[in-house]
């Protein structure tokens, strides 16, 4: 193409300009006008529309009445009259000066007041001091943290575990680390508040399915499949998650994990399992609901639990495959931006794990006690037991509601107060009523621990029966 004849000479080029075809010069003229228009355009935002005139804006401002910063609250709101506990909330708890048997604290394995755990925490306190004063990335990683993560991963038989310093923040940070805008999360209606906040932070599309209803979940998954077939390109980049709890905090029921795993593989969704109540309770060795059903732990993509129940420590952990958990080390907001777990609590958790590993018999003992009191509480007139027979935290709901939630709460509170007078410490399940997605009905939450003797369980069942009869009839 290029020959010696086609040499670049300025004069020739300018001559070509004079002989240029007209359409070309016109186009170039238009382009130069376009450049001038661009140079003189003012910047503006695309969606700046204000339909209101200045007068209308003034009117709106004058009409506005500010709401009080603190809304008026009645004097007998439970948050204003709380019971004061002195001493540890272990097997016997001193509430408002009265000693009661503790049926309210989630101290399932009785490790809260265990001397071994306390000794380990004291040793750690003397070695490290009290707090860490820094997040994990800023000199807040101590060897006890790495030890605890190791031990938890080994205990749950997964590749890796990650520790959070606050139980609520665990699942609330784990979900938004993986699920972003445009992703779809199928979650049970009875999911706890921490899961709801995590879902809200993730900005994903939330699909609620009826509690433990696999048919409803499958319907939603099928509808999503049909949507995906209409737009396969979008479907390829959308992530789908199913978030369930092992033992639900709000209802005490267990999730049907085998069916969930089948649905997971059929519809290509990932399962996030929240095991706060089932860790250290279900399964032969206390590994939770996967061991209970005999499902391989590799089928679950992420297991999250808080250490504030069975392990009687503070904080939470997530465990799973390495490449899943590692992502949270940079994307878990609660991990990166909160101070790490105090070393004494990490040492206490390690000792608690030691105890759990040394006597795996306590889990079946706990489940036996749960079944016993579950049976003993059947047939109370006016109250029904909600929850699995082997769940250590179950609910007592009114068989027939009075019609208003406040009345129900008042009735249940009377029952709780009478039981407290007879030295049985119970509590009502409390919710942020305006913030909950699907507010559960008011209930009394009964917690069984391994330290309660059979005689105390019988006495508690009898007391609740008598009090319920007196109050509700």
């Amino acid at each position, binding site marked *: *193409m*290029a*020959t010696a004849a*086609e040499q*670049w000479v300025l004069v*020739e*080029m300018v001559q*070509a*300009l004079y*002989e*240029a*075809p007209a359409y*070309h010069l016109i*186009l*170039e003229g238009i*382009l*130069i006008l*376009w*450049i001038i228009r*661009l*140079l003189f*355009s*003012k*910047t*503006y*935002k*695309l969606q700046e529309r204000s339909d209101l005139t200045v007068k209308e804006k003034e009117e709106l401002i004058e009409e506005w009445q500010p709401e009080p910063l603190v809304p008026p609250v009645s004097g007998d709101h439970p948050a204003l009259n709380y019971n004061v506990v002195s001493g540890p909330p272990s097997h016997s708890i001193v509430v408002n000066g009265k000693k009661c048997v503790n049926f309210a604290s989630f101290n399932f394995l009785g490790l809260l007041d265990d001397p071994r755990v306390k000794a380990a925490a004291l040793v750690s306190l003397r070695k490290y001091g009290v707090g860490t004063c820094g997040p994990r990335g800023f000199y807040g990683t101590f060897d006890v943290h790495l030890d605890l993560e190791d031990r938890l991963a080994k205990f749950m038989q997964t590749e890796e575990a990650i520790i959070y310093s606050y139980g609520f923040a665990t699942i609330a940070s784990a979900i*938004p680390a993986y699920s*972003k*805008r*445009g992703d779809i999360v199928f979650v049970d209606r009875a999911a706890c508040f921490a899961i709801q906040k995590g879902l809200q*932070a*993730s*900005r*994903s599309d939330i699909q609620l399915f009826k509690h433990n209803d696999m048919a409803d979940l499958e319907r939603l998954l099928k509808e999503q499949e049909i949507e995906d077939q209409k*737009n396969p*390109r*979008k479907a390829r*980049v959308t992530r789908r998650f199913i978030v369930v709890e092992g033992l639900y905090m709000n209802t005490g029921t267990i999730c049907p994990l085998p069916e969930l795993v089948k649905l997971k593989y059929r519809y290509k969704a990932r399962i996030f399992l929240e095991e706060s109540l089932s860790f250290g309770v279900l399964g032969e060795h206390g590994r939770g609901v996967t061991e209970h059903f005999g499902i391989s732990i590799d089928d679950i993509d992420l297991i999250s639990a808080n250490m504030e129940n069975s392990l009687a420590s503070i904080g939470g952990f997530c465990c799973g495959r390495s490449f899943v958990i590692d992502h949270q080390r940079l*994307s878990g907001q609660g991990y990166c931006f909160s101070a790490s777990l105090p070393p004494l609590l990490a040492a206490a958790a390690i000792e608690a794990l030691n105890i759990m590993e040394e006597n795996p018999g306590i889990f079946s003992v706990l489940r036996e006690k749960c079944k016993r009191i579950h049976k003993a509480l059947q047939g109370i007139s006016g109250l029904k037991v909600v929850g699995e027979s082997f769940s250590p935290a179950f609910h007592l709901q009114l068989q027939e509601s009075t019609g208003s939630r406040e009345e129900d709460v008042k009735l249940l509170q009377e029952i709780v107060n009478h039981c407290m007078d007879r030295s049985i410490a119970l509590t009502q399940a409390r919710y942020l009523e305006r913030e909950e997605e699907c507010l559960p009905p008011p209930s009394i939450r009964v917690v069984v621990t391994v330290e309660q003797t059979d005689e105390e369980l019988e006495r508690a069942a009898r007391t609740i029966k008598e009090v319920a009869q007196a109050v509700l009839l």
Partner: protein
Amino acid sequence: MNVWVAHSEVNPDTQVMNSQRIWLAYIILAGLLHVVLLSIFFFSIPVVWTLTNVIHNLAMYVFLHTMKETPFETPDQGKAQLLTHWEQMDYGIQFISSRKFLSISPIVLYLLASFYAKYDAVHFLINTASLLGVLLPKLSQSHGVCLFGIKNTEGWGWG
């Protein structure tokens, strides 16, 4: 947004084109492309300029109007997931200086290319088509427009 200074910019993609040093780097890069093409001895001058124009416009189209979202994870849960870099620039404000610069530079390249091609008809067709392909997505009316009706997809089409 300066890079080695603490800033609260959640999505750096929005600010990266605003610095004048980027503009200089862009000009140098385009010049480098041209010099490399010039060094291929069997291309004539008009072909070199047309090729520069076409390759520059193609690269601009791919980087600014095709790829969606950011090459890194942002802490805003993927707000810019469906936006090309052009739409992300300065959060969608139109006629900022970097948008003006990036709209004018392909036009300038086109004017130079047609000059050096001596206003030849074949080169005119190729250069004009390429210029239109890279100017149309830059119009403020093209903000958010999906090409060929492919909505909400990742990685293709402008908008």
